[in-house]
């Protein structure tokens, strides 16, 4: 009995001892870990303060005095682009301490830190023997004390503005992590003349309003121009032949043609993402349905068949779905269907009437015009109809078009009154940073091109 107890106790002790060892081992590990984690303070930063990045843009220097004007002008264009994006805050040049004199030297970062410039762009313009100019620039991280980007371009001096846009895009992308949209153009309807007798011409200009050029003569009404995603082509609706028809226009050559041979009026055209097809509405009696036409084979396919007005079709960037507006439920609403016309589903659920849907180039959002209580709003929603967000509203806002990076929308805003007329405006996805887009006269129906390069 005793021995038995003894054995039991011994066994018990052994177990205890083993347990203690195990415990010790674990504790040693625990202490080790504790020491490490406690010894090194670790802090999570989960809140930031998003704000425009202060950027210093001293004039690009020139290797010879004659090139200095181009250098200053380029800097001006870049500064304007970045500032208008709302994501950059160019530092007032009056605050600059350092004058860049040698492009090949690293800047003295202290001089730029003091004025709180987080980024610095230096550049140089050099005429080449062959008549071209060489433009070089460097983007510096002032606080990080390093070069972030350095590039050079050779071009005809007349193209300095385009190079400035390309440089703007490079800076934008390097700092924000998103593609830029400055090297783009806008095609729109230029409107001149009295309010009751407006002359409407197709016009094209750089995204910042410069280099405007007219594509039609103003003798016939034109509407809803849209850029080809792949070619220097525009599709639009015109009354040129008396009846509204969809046309295709080559921007470079001026060549024009009617799209398709339809019996009724065609309108609201838009290219497919691959540029191979145009989708549009065809009116038949009191109804309108959506058709797609292959530009090479000229084959047309009917995509909707309903006793209602289906219009404003826009492809998703992957080409698999189409968003459009229809009044089949009694009022204008937004629907999404397969690219073959199957499975149309209403996605707009809010109050009011929805129209002019446009799928974002990123695919994540659909922009629209919404009429609510006598006002016109521009908003976005996800392709399933959720997450509706209004970006701007007013007396009359209409016809959103996406910048190629899917962060900015352009639209037109009508100003009431005898002297009023439509103007082009842009707004970014946050709903802040509304900017007037300069046009020589009134303008409507803007369409943003893809990046030119």
């Amino acid at each position, binding site marked *: 009995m005793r021995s038995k107890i003894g054995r039991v106790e011994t066994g018990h002790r052994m177990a*205890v001892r083993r347990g203690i060892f195990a415990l010790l081992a674990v504790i040693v590990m625990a202490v080790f*870990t504790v020491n490490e984690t406690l010894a090194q*303070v670790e802090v*999570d930063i989960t809140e930031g303060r998003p704000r425009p990045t202060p950027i210093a843009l001293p004039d690009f220097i020139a*290797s010879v005095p004659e090139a200095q004007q181009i250098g200053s002008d380029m800097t001006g264009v870049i500064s304007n682009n970045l500032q208008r994006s709302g994501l950059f805050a160019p530092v007032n040049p009056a605050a600059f301490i350092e004058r860049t004199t040698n492009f090949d030297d690293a800047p003295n*970062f202290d001089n730029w830190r003091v004025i709180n410039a987080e980024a610095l762009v230096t550049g140089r313009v050099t005429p080449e023997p062959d008549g071209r100019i060489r433009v070089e620039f460097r983007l510096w991280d002032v606080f*990080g004390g390093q070069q972030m980007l350095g590039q050079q*371009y050779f071009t005809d001096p007349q193209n300095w503005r385009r190079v400035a846009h390309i440089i703007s895009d490079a800076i934008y992308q390097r700092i924000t992590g998103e593609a830029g949209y400055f090297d783009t153009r806008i095609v729109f309807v230029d409107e001149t003349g009295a309010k009751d007798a407006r002359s409407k011409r197709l016009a094209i200009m750089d995204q910042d309003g410069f280099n405007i050029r007219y594509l039609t003569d103003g003798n016939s009404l034109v509407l809803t121009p849209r850029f080809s995603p792949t070619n220097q082509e525009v599709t639009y609706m015109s009354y040129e032949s008396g009846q509204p028809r969809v046309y295709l226009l080559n921007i470079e050559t001026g060549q024009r043609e009617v799209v398709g041979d339809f019996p009724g009026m065609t309108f609201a055209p838009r290219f497919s993402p691959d540029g191979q097809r145009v989708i549009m509405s065809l009116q038949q009696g009191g109804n309108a349905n959506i058709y797609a036409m292959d530009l090479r084979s000229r084959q047309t396919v009917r995509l909707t068949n309903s006793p209602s007005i289906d219009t404003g079709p826009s492809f998703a960037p992957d080409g698999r779905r189409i968003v459009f507006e229809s009044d089949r439920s009694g009022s204008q609403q937004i629907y999404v269907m397969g690219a073959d016309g199957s499975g149309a589903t209403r996605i707009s659920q809010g109050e009011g009437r929805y129209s002019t849907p446009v799928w974002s180039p990123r695919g994540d959002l659909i922009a629209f015009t919404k009429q609510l209580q006598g006002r016109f709003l521009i908003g976005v929603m996800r392709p399933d109809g959720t997450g509706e967000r209004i970006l701007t509203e007013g007396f009359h806002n209409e016809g959103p078009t996406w910048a190629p990076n899917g962060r900015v929308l352009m639209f037109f805003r009508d100003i009431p009154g005898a002297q009023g007329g439509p103007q082009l405006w842009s707004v970014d996805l946050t709903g802040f940073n509304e900017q007037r887009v300069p046009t020589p006269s009134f303008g409507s129906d803007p369409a943003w091109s893809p990046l030119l390069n």
Partner: protein
Amino acid sequence: MKTGLAVSFVGHAALAAWGLVSITGDPGEFEMQASLPVEIVTIAEMTEITAGTADGDPEVEPQAPEPEPVVEDERVDVLNPDGEPLDQTEEAAAPPPDPEPEPEPVSEPEETAEALPETEPAPEPLANVPLPPEKPEPPQREPEPEPEPETEVAEPQPEPEPEQSQPLDLTNQNDFNPDRVAALLDKSLEEEGGAVDAPNTGDTASLGSSQGLGSRLTVNEIDALRQQISRCWNPPVGVQEAQNLVVRLNLELAPDGFLYGTPQVMNSSFDNTFQIASEAAVRAVIQCQPYTMLPVEKYDVWRNMILNFDPRQMLAG
């Protein structure tokens, strides 16, 4: 029974260990619970403990990067101390000190390629339109003394400062004296909550390291630090919208709250935006120095810190 006991012990021990580890490991809790008591209770103790610290600093300072770079200011130097390291790194573009203008403006061939795949402004784009011709030339490489460095994102490269960090490591290691483990344990168990143990206090001759776990930053101190950095942190839109883009930085601080060297990025990601995210984080830390809310008495606690920049919560909308 034997096995039962053993299992029980091991199980409990594991549980206890897990608790310790997970609680201390989570920064969130850090502020909430553990540190509060410290703030209230142990002020006196801490001041005692930390007495020795002051001296330590001087030694460290020397290490501050030597200025050779362009910049004159020491602090600045510190920021981009790496004259040489940089050279190695990719950017060829660094402007040579005044060589002749022409040929080398280095453009970015590679850079462009990586950074802006789609855009690639330079070259081809121009081709379309009669505009600008193109092409960036290969970067020329001249040995540049100081120019811009760049610490690119992903790989934390060994920076000149290893030394500084070393001291810390050493101390840490000293902390583990296996022999003393038991003692440490007891202590911590007894006075849990408050200043825990200062394991190696005696061991490390250098710097009078108080180091102990005993002194921690208080909630207020951590909050102040967090707020200051948050003010300077400007996560670019591309970063805000990228998911799971957390940047982990390791900082070395001087007793006056200024940085020693450039903060090191401790993690990496395949996300293209990571480089931009890490640059923004580094910029915030540099821009917001000095961190004077950190009490000198606790220098050993905060001289080396980890900051996790996590933009996920900012994307509420």
